[in-house]
């Protein structure tokens, strides 16, 4: 939605090759087609599992990126929104029989409310103080979920009966889950792209890059931040519901853990903060790496897979400042320069 009055000279429309802010590119379409092909080919159950998780975490990284990358609200508390989404749809399903197809939106809305509330209270804080406040808020939610046993099942957790049925959003085949998760990625990606090309996106960038100048221009920074956090939490909550439907079991120590929050933040950080393609590339690199290392090396020597995983992360952080998205752009520029 641009306010541009005079039509610029019409150029023949061609998609850009590499991802650009607010525009669809050939790279993104190719990546999507590759995902479809990957879903279609025959793979072992183990690899299918990795694929489902990779898609799910790509979506979750994208959701986190709206707050952390676009609004500059580095949150280490997104597991709380994830947990709220997961528990809401599961409780509605298990105790009230509401289909998760509706429950996941309820989970998203509740998570959004929690996110907006958190931003209203904490987004006045800056830098490390904001980060710590999100970490603490998520711990409050985790401890609350652990102790409110009548609602959440406490430390014993909650299970969803594995009755495979489309209405229950429970499937036997992992391919169905892969399609579901890919749909989630596309949904969050489309929202991200629409956001970064719209004036709401410009407000976010403005507040992130120079809050004082944005205020001077009339932008209400707290409102803009609160909306971004709410949207990010909404999408994270939906991801939580999808996770619950895949694992069919929830317990607070995992779904509301700080480790999970760090993971959400890590994917965009590796892939490229504040870019749409970043979290996707981040998840496509990190999630298979961590899952495969765990399954192949997990038994060989305790902790070895974590050492290799961390070393890999350090290398990426050192040699790809700006993340994989920036590396991709550099590659593209180098390729263009050649005759």
């Amino acid at each position, binding site marked *: 939605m*641009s*306010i*541009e*009055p*005079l039509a*610029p000279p019409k150029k023949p429309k061609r998609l850009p090759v590499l991802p650009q802010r607010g525009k669809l590119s050939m790279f993104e379409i190719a990546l999507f087609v590759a995902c479809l092909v990957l879903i279609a080919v025959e793979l072992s159950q183990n690899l299918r599992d990795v694929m489902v998780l990779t898609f799910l975490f790509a979506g979750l990284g994208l959701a986190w990126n709206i707050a952390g990358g676009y609004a500059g609200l580095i949150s280490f508390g997104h597991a709380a929104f994830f947990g709220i989404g997961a528990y809401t749809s599961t409780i509605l399903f298990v105790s009230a029989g509401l289909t998760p197809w509706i429950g996941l939106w309820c989970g998203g809305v509740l998570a959004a409310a929690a996110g907006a509330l958190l931003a209203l209270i904490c987004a006045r804080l800056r830098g490390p103080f904001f980060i710590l406040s999100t970490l603490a808020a998520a711990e409050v939610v985790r401890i609350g979920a652990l102790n409110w046993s009548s609602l959440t099942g406490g430390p014993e957790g909650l299970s969803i009966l594995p009755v495979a049925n489309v209405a229950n959003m429970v499937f036997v085949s992992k391919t169905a889950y892969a399609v579901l998760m890919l749909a989630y990625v596309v949904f969050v990606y489309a929202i991200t792209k629409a956001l970064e090309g719209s*004036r709401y996106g*410009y*407000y976010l*960038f*403005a507040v992130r*890059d*120079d809050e*004082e*100048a*944005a*205020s*001077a*221009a*009339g*932008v*209400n*920074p707290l409102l803009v931040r609160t909306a971004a956090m709410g949207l990010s939490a909404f999408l994270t909550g939906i991801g939580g519901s999808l996770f619950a439907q895949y694992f069919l079991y929830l317990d607070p120590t995992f779904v509301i853990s700080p480790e999970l929050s760090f993971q959400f933040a890590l994917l965009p950080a590796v892939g490229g903060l504040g870019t749409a393609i970043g979290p996707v590339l981040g998840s496509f690199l990190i999630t298979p790496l961590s899952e495969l290392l765990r399954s192949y090396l997990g038994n060989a020597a305790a902790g070895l897979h974590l050492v290799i995983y961390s070393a890999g992360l350090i290398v990426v952080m050192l040699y790809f400042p700006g993340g994989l998205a920036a590396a991709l752009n550099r590659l593209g520029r180098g390729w263009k320069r050649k005759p």
Partner: protein
Amino acid sequence: MLEVKDLNAFYGPVQVLHGVNLSVAASEIVALVGANAAGKSTLMFTLAGLRTTHTGSILLDGEPIGDFPAYERVPRGLVLVPERRRLFPFMNVIENLEIGAYSAAARPVARDTLDEVFQLLPVLAERRKQVAGSLSGGEQQMLAIGRALMAKPRVLLLDEPTEGLAPIYVKLLFDLIVNLRRSGLTVLIVEQNVHHVLRTADRAYVLENGRIVLQGQGESLLKDERLKVAYLGL
């Protein structure tokens, strides 16, 4: 139109402005001059509702606005063009202008305002898709003013708009200010370029160590020996 009474402004515990009184009438160009660190920018920030805490009153058309945050002063028509322009360098010209039209009042008419801004500042129309960081200093200043105009201001606060500009842009800028006044805008301007600004302004205030020490008609102030004293601290 804009009235400031007994204004004291603070950065934390440090008091920068001491009992400042000033008023700007509708469609007037008022200059604020003074040596470095006299408190000119602090006054501008305080008027815009940024950074400082203050005591005393700020009235816009008789309405006390001193307790409002910046984003509630902008829709009332008081808009600051900050020192050093403060654009969003990675966004293009149109996107920077979009941000200026945030308020509920400015948004519905943004398209028309944009036409006006482009007419007033044709260089922006030429560069509409260029990222702000790649514009020249003069173009950036025009963009900063354009961004403020998108908010439909009635009183424009300009903080050192000619800083670091080529002489041709300095002239262009003062022409623009006179033009804006002709269209009904009220302007309060902070300037280091004393000779130029005092010739353009209707009235001026001289600020020294956070206090107003001198005021008067623009041109006549130029001849006043006390102006030199305020500047050079003699």
